[in-house]
């Protein structure tokens, strides 16, 4: 369960941003998770309820936006959506494809409150 350490890393970034922006608390955190990122959104949300305690985001909500796996075919050039365990071209069926997105783990935005 490495989602807890991922959560701690995320909260450290959020704390730094809140401090820089002189916010008193954080209302919402939006993260963008690719299916190939190694992180399970549900576990991240669970870990968040533990990790947020005592932080500037103690009352924050966590939104997890699951990204699509998108690939580009090296043979025919088609771009298509794929599933993380079947990255085959949707046009020609070739397996020689390149990942365009789907392995990201991003802190996308935070909603800050300044009182």
């Amino acid at each position, binding site marked *: 369960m490495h989602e807890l350490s991922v959560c701690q890393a995320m909260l450290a*970034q959020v704390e730094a941003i809140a401090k820089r922006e002189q916010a008193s608390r954080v209302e919402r955190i939006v993260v963008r998770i690719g299916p190939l990122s190694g992180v399970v959104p549900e576990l991240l949300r669970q870990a968040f309820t533990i990790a947020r305690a005592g932080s500037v985001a103690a009352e924050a909500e966590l939104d997890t936006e699951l990204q699509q796996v998108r690939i580009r075919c090296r043979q025919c050039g088609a771009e298509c959506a794929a599933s993380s365990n079947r990255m085959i071209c949707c046009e020609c069926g070739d397996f020689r494809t390149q990942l365009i997105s789907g392995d990201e*783990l*991003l802190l996308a935005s935070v909603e800050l*409150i300044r009182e």
Partner: protein
Amino acid sequence: MCTVCGCGEGETKIEGHEHDHNHHHHHDGHGEHGHTHDYGQGPAHAHAPGLSQSRMVQIEQDILSKNNQYAGANRRYFEQLGILALNLVSSPGSGKTTLLTRTISDLMANYAISVIEGDQQTANDAQRIRATGANALQINTGKGCHLDGHMVGHALETLKPEQGSLLFIENVGNLVCPAAFDLGEAHKVAILSVTEGEDKPVKYPDMFHAADLMLLNKIDLLPHLDFDVERCIDYAQRINPRIKVLQVSATTGEGMEAWYQWIVASRQMALAGNPAVPA
């Protein structure tokens, strides 16, 4: 908790590493180390009392950027010294340590080799490695399910792998978590044994996507099993068309020569552009 870098190390124990509160980090480039952010308390602090403002701040930053900085520092260290670092990942029991002990015995006449062993609790694997004569350092991650770039950075301070050497990192036995944590290695090598399901690549796509090489181990047992090798390779390539697959037996030695050739070729790549280190 490491007071210098502020990292939560939890229960991590690195052999020979006194994590005292005054330690110095020698590994250069640890971006965050000793860095104090200067958030000035400017006039913007004054505001109408009772008025609370809410606003969205767009960030788009990699959550694992801190780990990636440590990993990046490790990678620069490896590049400077012409060290080939490989991160070995698998489920528990796939044969990582057995594969390493044999690899070391077969290659140590030609290359200096050191090993970082990751395990939650025991130091058994580092002892098995040391029995071959290679340098090994154990990292116990406690409840942590993966090694990270920071732990490896500290391990390097103690292990001090030599110029032009091979460094193997045996990650904690787990096909999920180590996928997300770059250690600075040149390649991740996933080990899958034929006693496991041939569909493991599709069950753990993150890991097989991140690996450059898959070693299909324990092929000596194939006659007793109905493991479909072709199918397994097909699954792995569906997830990762770049992945190279080699079939080996760490106990009989079958197929190991191809693995050694892959190591030597990868080392050449690691040394390219590093004329300071003799090949």
